[in-house]
């Protein structure tokens, strides 16, 4: 039995500007089911971080409970991590982003963690606009407890046991749009060509960047009749367009038909090269994005790609005017524990 991954790697792997190969961004060997979509998303995060030349110690991974929330163990093994209480990752993310703005935050959650037990936390994280990448690994079922329908299961979707879901699904993308998220994307774990640039763009976005990734549960929700099975998703996927992340130093080369390409400037000077496939919709306008989501829903299609992009982003620290605060970890012991005299002074203020 192999739960040990060989340590050998391909000797000629390319290195990024920090001298790391993508293997340096991997984590432990996954214990999820073979073929789980979540593993594919983990691999996409690994590749995105490798391409973005990010130093592993500059990243924090935060998660709650669930199959999805186990994944931070399986990527970025040299980064910080916090596995919180079920559905409470946004609280930890809020606190972390306030006390250390130097780190890049990956929040990883699932449909149970974010749409059921953690729904209250999720919506507040969106409206507070925490500077983080929030990835939902959405499989429409509770895989860890043997596949009951989750709150994102579509009406009419059939479970492995044969029961049909009768309740309306929570639409993560629509919800995030409604609550004012500045970066909203949807993707599919089986389409890394689309997913990796989306993650790269999200990493460079200043503010709350949300990606809802359909990720089939290969064990409990990959059956005929399920709307989150590999086959179903592949048949009903409708990509809004393709994007490429173009780092600051690269010149933009347009090779697409006129009128379909938009170059979206990021705050750091890099670009998103966005090629729209659907011409009657504009990802830079919230109304238009709503309409596109609704249209896809009516025609039972899964809209993937970059759904909405706010060109003038803001985030929690900007709103609170705390962008110049020193990270907590840089405080000395004396500053953090100024002694009884200071305590007495503080107490006096309250008398």
């Amino acid at each position, binding site marked *: 039995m192999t739960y040990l991954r060989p340590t050998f790697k391909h000797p*000629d792997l390319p290195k990024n500007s920090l001298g790391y190969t993508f293997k340096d961004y991997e984590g432990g060997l*996954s214990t999820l089911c073979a073929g789980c979509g979540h593993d594919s998303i983990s691999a996409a995060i690994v590749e995105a971080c490798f391409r973005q030349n990010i130093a592993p110690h500059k990243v924090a991974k935060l998660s709650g409970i669930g199959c999805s929330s186990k994944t931070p163990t399986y990527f970025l093994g040299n980064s910080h991590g916090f596995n919180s209480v079920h559905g409470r990752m946004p609280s930890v993310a809020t606190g972390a982003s306030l006390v250390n703005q130097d780190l890049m935050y990956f929040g990883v959650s699932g449909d149970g963690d974010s749409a059921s037990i953690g729904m209250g936390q999720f919506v507040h994280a969106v409206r507070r606009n925490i500077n983080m990448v929030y990835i939902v690994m959405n499989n429409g079922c509770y895989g860890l407890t043997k596949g009951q329908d989750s709150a994102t299961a579509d009406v009419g979707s059939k479970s492995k046991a044969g029961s049909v879901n009768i309740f309306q699904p929570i639409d993560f993308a629509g919800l995030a749009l409604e609550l004012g998220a500045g970066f909203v994307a949807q993707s599919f774990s089986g389409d890394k060509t689309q997913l990796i640039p989306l993650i790269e763009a999200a990493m460079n976005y200043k503010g709350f960047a949300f990606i809802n990734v359909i990720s089939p549960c290969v064990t409990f929700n990959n059956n005929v009749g399920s709307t989150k099975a590999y086959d179903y998703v592949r048949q009903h996927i409708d990509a809004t367009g393709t994007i490429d992340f173009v780092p600051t130093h690269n010149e933009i080369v347009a090779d697409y038909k006129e009128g379909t390409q938009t170059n979206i400037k990021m705050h750091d000077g890099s670009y998103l090269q966005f090629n729209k496939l659907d011409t009657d919709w504009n990802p830079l306008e919230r109304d238009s994005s709503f309409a596109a989501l609704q249209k896809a829903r009516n025609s039972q299609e899964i809209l993937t790609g970059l759904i909405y992009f706010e060109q003038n982003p803001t985030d929690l620290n900007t709103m609170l005017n705390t962008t110049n605060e020193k990270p907590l970890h840089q405080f000395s012991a004396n500053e953090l524990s100024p002694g009884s005299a200071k305590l007495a002074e503080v107490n006096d203020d309250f008398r």
Partner: protein
Amino acid sequence: MKPTDIKNPEYFHKVVDCQYACPSHTPVPQYIRLIAAERYSEAYMVNWESNVFPGVLGRTCDRPCEPACRRGRVEEKPVAICRLKRVAADNKDEVKQYMPAGPFAPNGKKIALIGGGPASLTVARDLSPLGYEIHLFDEHKKGGGMMRSQIPSFRLPEEVLDEEVGYILDMGVHTHFNKYVSSLKEIIEDGYNAIFVGTGAPRGRDLASLPGRQEGKSNIHIGIEWLASVAFEHIHKIGKKVIVLGGGNTAMDCCRTARRMGGEEVKVIVRSPFTEMKASPWEIEDAIHEDIPILENHVPKEFVIENGKLKGMLFDKVHAVYDEDGKRSLVPTAEPPVFVEADDVLVAIGQENSFPWIERDLGLEFDKWNMPVVDKTTHQSTVSHIFFGGDAAFGPKNIITSVAQGHAAAVSIDLFCSGEDVHVRPSPVTNLVSQKMGIHEWSYDNYISNDFRFVVPQADKSITLKNLKKEVELGFDVESAFKEAQRCLNCDVQTVFDFKRCIECDACMDICPTSCITFTTNGDESDLRTRLKAPSNNINQDLYVSEALPTTRVMVKDEDMCLHCGLCAERCPTAAWDMQKFSYITSKPGYSWQAV
């Protein structure tokens, strides 16, 4: 690219790099697993079937398998395949019970084997059990050919050779030792159904025209002749100062033997740069370890004779210059000639074929190099019932090549004697069997060891240099043999992909530790190689390409760095990947109509 045809056994055969590189295609990973399981006798028999002399080859093989070993690409050094083979031979139980035992029912056909070396012995072993009456002729008093006369006993103990030659001769071979065949015509007239010539490359090259060669002849010896005289105990000592000319394995054997025969200052002197010496690196290492300096870029100028006695040699110093095509020429450096003192000189600058005993009016054609015209595949000469093999066929190579050629010639002889077309070669016997035992369980040990190559211990030179017969290498003990065996990547356990089952979840691509697997759109090979997950620069290693998948992509696996760890198959939710053991055994005479 077109989908890979894995039904063609040559595809997976090539993936097993060691077996593919071995001239007689020994199933290396198979016997290495048996050694790890302490099943030494079986490991020995797997070898014996393919290469006939496991004990001999486990000490002396040129090991073409090792440079080919995938482990050597994944990390620094290949598995010590050769010395593991010796472990099987050293630790086996009685193996004769597993070998074909005579007397065999005669088939009425009579075969003559001329020369008693590895090629002839292989033919004898392959044909005896089929009922052929085998007559083996050799000029020496025992069988073994160059394995006996040219390989010193401190590298190959006589009892090991005797044992393995014995297994063959005991099958009922009629031996004619101490019989130098001086006329092929006479043999032909004796009415054999087929004749096999395995007389090796018996003539050592000389420096006949070098000044002083004649005057100093009593102290100037031809390397292989001198080694034979030592082996058959005709000579027992050599001068204190010895020069060995030549940079091949024979030169290494000469210098090390000289150290044991009384040579105190033994020097190897080569024309070429040190890095271009033909000897195997490990043999050069062993010579240096025995305090034998190697002087490079010295071209022999003359033998220096004083008062009718050899005093030493003069050499011109040169350096190597390479032209645009990489062709080397040795250009004099204009330094004065160098004198090296010597009591004896051993000339080991190569050997060549020689057929003074073959009459040229028998219809047997010779080419412009005075070599017999022999078919590369069938080993048949221009006289239909005369076959050549080993060094006698295509010039000096090595033992394992001779064995492979012996097998091929035996197949031809059997086809010929059965009245069949020798050009229709029997197919190899192949099989492909799943190794799956459970969800994460395989019937092979797929754990990848991180150990580096283990070094074979040697006896101390204070002992070995005093005793010509004391074997220098001690062989692996059982414990380090196990660890070394675990370094093997089991390349014969193939990753077999069934595109119909694949749901394109990417799990295999994500888990592969060496990034061998990519799902991408198809293209021609040179294009595909640029689009794989890891660089794909080793074009000698194939790409395994599947049929088109539902998304129109294909699975492309670069075989180059595959660890055969089975993680792709463990990660596959639909068992589209499976680990299947591929066996490939070259056909031996009698196999084609025999259920194996």
